[in-house]
């Protein structure tokens, strides 16, 4: 057995009010993929930020190549050969790939000579099959390319231990396959990898070792051969979790949401949605899949009346319009769970009760002659907190103090409890832990059973595959295909998501 490359022992890190890591151990051998698995807030990111010198641990020690080291800054980490691919890419959009690579190299007043850097980038990208144009600006690049640029940045610095913080979250299935090929190549060269993910399928596929974190502590250490997805989920959540979703057979009813040849412009004035037509029937979940930024957000905003429709129209409950406003579509019977719950779905500095009546506060019994009826609001919100098992000290707690999953439940409770017959649901479980995701999925299935028409937009392919009756794949604003659930395969969807039809 080879000596470990990295040993983190008994790492403890406290933030005001939270212990982010408590006595965590992590050992990585050369040539090994060591996965850190855990819910949001379990302490994975904190641990790797300590490893990369972005945070200092309160207790514990780190040795690299057998000798103890104090990693006091990213510069130190880079110096000993540790690299990191951050979840939110650490690239400067207005610089080229070569300039991004050059950043942090060289003396302050020296000239930036990009020529050798370009050359080296080409060598490294050749060696590892990472196709990147060194002179392309980051803002021009697709997400997959940006990630390759990030990896190049680390490889350029002769990284020996590479940390990847949720690298697959933004990739299409074919891109994930490519990434895994690259990762295998890196470990074959004797590099060590720390891989962070909460996608159980991937974790089982790529890992040599798995360390599971829960509430800042190590809740288990295992290997793919010795565990199952279910046992990993249990380690993550602390109780058994149902991972499979069952769609009960039911016949869809009449069309409730219809979109006809819709075209919508994006933030930069280009067409973000082009000639999109679809129908959602009562008692049906239609799932829209696609890599982020392929028009899904603009489509949802257009339906909701938040973005001007360029051409085409929508119909909710057979009432047509081409100039919807949020108020109007809500009156027609649409409810909306927006993708960013903190930005568009709720007001963090409002109480849970206030957020729960945000769509009803201007209607009796919650308001009488312009004065809010606090007792009616309280009664209603208590009911919803119970019905949707929202974990909050009370209804007067500020919403931003809840966990992501519970804030999402607040949004869901408000939107699902009304009499809307059409539900437009975007990214319902993004950043939500497995336990809460299970609950949210059950709620969606319950709504389906009650005959609601649901348009589900998600970047999580597994989620859409599990919940939808029909899948609609979007690529560059257009529909690449509409496939009934029974006929859909991950491979086929993955290809459509990359624009291959």
């Amino acid at each position, binding site marked *: 057995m080879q000596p470990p490359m990295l040993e983190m022992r008994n790492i403890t890190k406290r933030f005001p009010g939270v212990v982010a890591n408590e006595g965590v151990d992590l050992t990585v051998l050369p040539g090994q993929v060591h996965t850190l698995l855990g819910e949001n807030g379990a302490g994975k990111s904190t641990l790797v930020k300590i490893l990369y010198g*972005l945070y200092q641990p309160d207790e514990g020690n780190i040795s690299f190549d057998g000798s103890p080291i104090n990693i006091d800054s990213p510069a130190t980490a880079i110096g000993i050969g540790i690299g990191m691919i951050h979840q939110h890419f650490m690239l400067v959009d207005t*610089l080229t790939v070569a300039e991004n690579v050059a950043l942090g190299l060289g003396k302050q*007043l020296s000239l930036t000579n990009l020529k050798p850097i370009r050359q080296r980038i080409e060598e490294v990208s050749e060696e590892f099959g990472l196709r990147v144009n060194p002179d392309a600006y980051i803002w021009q690049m697709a997400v997959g390319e940006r990630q390759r640029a990030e990896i190049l940045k680390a490889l350029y610095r002769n990284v020996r231990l590479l940390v990847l913080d949720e690298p697959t979250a933004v990739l299409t299935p074919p891109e994930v396959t490519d990434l895994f090929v690259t990762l295998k190549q890196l470990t074959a060269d004797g590099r060590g990898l720390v891989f962070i993910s909460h996608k159980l399928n991937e974790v089982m596929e790529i890992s040599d070792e798995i360390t599971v974190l829960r509430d800042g502590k190590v809740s288990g250490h295992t290997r793919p051969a010795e565990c199952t997805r279910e046992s990993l989920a249990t380690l993550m959540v602390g109780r058994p979790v149902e991972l499979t979703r069952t769609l009960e057979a039911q016949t869809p009813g009449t069309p409730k949401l219809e979109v006809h040849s819709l075209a919508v412009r994006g933030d930069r004035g280009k067409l973000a949605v082009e000639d999109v037509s679809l129908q959602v029937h009562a008692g049906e979940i239609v799932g829209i899949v696609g890599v982020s930024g392929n028009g899904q957000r603009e489509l949802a905003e257009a339906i909701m009346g938040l973005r001007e429709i360029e051409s085409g129209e929508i119909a909710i409950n057979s009432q047509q319009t081409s100039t919807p406003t949020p108020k109007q579509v809500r009156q027609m019977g649409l409810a909306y769970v927006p993708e960013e719950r903190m930005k568009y779905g709720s007001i963090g500095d409002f109480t849970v009760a206030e957020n729960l009546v945000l769509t009803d506060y201007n209607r009796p019994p919650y308001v009488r002659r312009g004065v809010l009826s606090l007792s009616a609001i309280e009664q209603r919100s208590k009911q919803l907190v119970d019905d949707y098992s929202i974990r909050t000290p009370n209804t007067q707690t500020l919403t931003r103090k809840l966990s992501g999953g519970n804030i999402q439940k607040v949004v869901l409770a408000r939107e699902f409890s009304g009499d809307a017959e059409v539900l437009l649901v975007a990214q319902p479980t993004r950043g939500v832990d497995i336990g809460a995701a299970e609950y949210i999925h059950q709620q969606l299935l319950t709504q389906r059973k009650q005959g609601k028409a649901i348009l589900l937009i998600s970047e999580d392919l597994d989620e859409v595959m599990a919940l939808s009756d029909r899948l609609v794949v979007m690529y560059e604003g257009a529909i690449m295909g509409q496939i009934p659930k029974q006929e859909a395969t991950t491979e086929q969807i993955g290809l459509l998501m990359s624009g291959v039809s």
Partner: protein
Amino acid sequence: MSEFFTVAILTATLTSGIRQAVPYLLAALGEAVSQRAGVLNLGVEGVMLIGAFSAYYATLETKSAAIGLLMGLLAGMFMGLIYAFITVVMHAEQGISGIGIYLFGLGFTDLLFQKQVGTPRPIQGLKTKPMNWLAEDTGRVGELLFSHTILTYVAFLLVPAVYWLVTRTTFGLNVRAVGENPHAADTLGVSVNGVRAAAIVFGNTMAGLAGAVLVLDIVQNFQQNLTAGRGFIAIALVYFGAWRPLRVMAGALLFGIVSSTVLTLQALDVISGSVTSIANMAPAVLTVIVLVVVSRRIGQPAALTKPFTRDA
């Protein structure tokens, strides 16, 4: 009005316009670098006043414009250190801190002026005209291009120098990176706060220099609120110039020529009385128009005005 359109007067107006453009240009170039690093300094006007007074007082006392120039520069640099401490170390809100610097500069220079000088006394500015030998037998073109004092040439040479600094040096790359995505720069071992502090000190030094040039090359005197809004216009020029040195220079020339045109028209008595007051508003009105026209802010550094902390 017709007298204005003679070759002699037009040339004189343009020549004066180039000279008037220099304080705008210096202050705006400095502010552009500071903003490229993500730091807005609304206090340019105050720093210009402090630079102007330092240059004026030092020249008055030592009779040496060179020492005056140096003092103006050092005063700007010192203000830069203070502003870097306030915004980079203490993470104070940049807009409000800048207004504080302006008010401090305005009040402090007036106080010192009243205490130390009292009534305005003219000084001998920097008279060196390095290219004048070329001006003599090249006619109007010569007058336009070669009759300026050394500081004007230095200011215009700083345009390519700043361009080169920002686009070709490691420091410039760091400046651009910390202005766009400081977290990315941080993860590569770049000292975000160090780079920002350096950019701030550079920007303020340029503002101090701008004030010194105003005193030594244009007014050759001092009075309360000598800069009369030039520092604020310089900030507007950064937006007008989309954070690029060459375009900033174009804006500075535009404003310089507008100022000198107003002065010429006054001297020719084309405009007088209350019309003069309205004409004096021309730079301010132009600023508003320019800002409305370029309101799209293409090229604005993404992290402008955002203090950097790792936990964000």
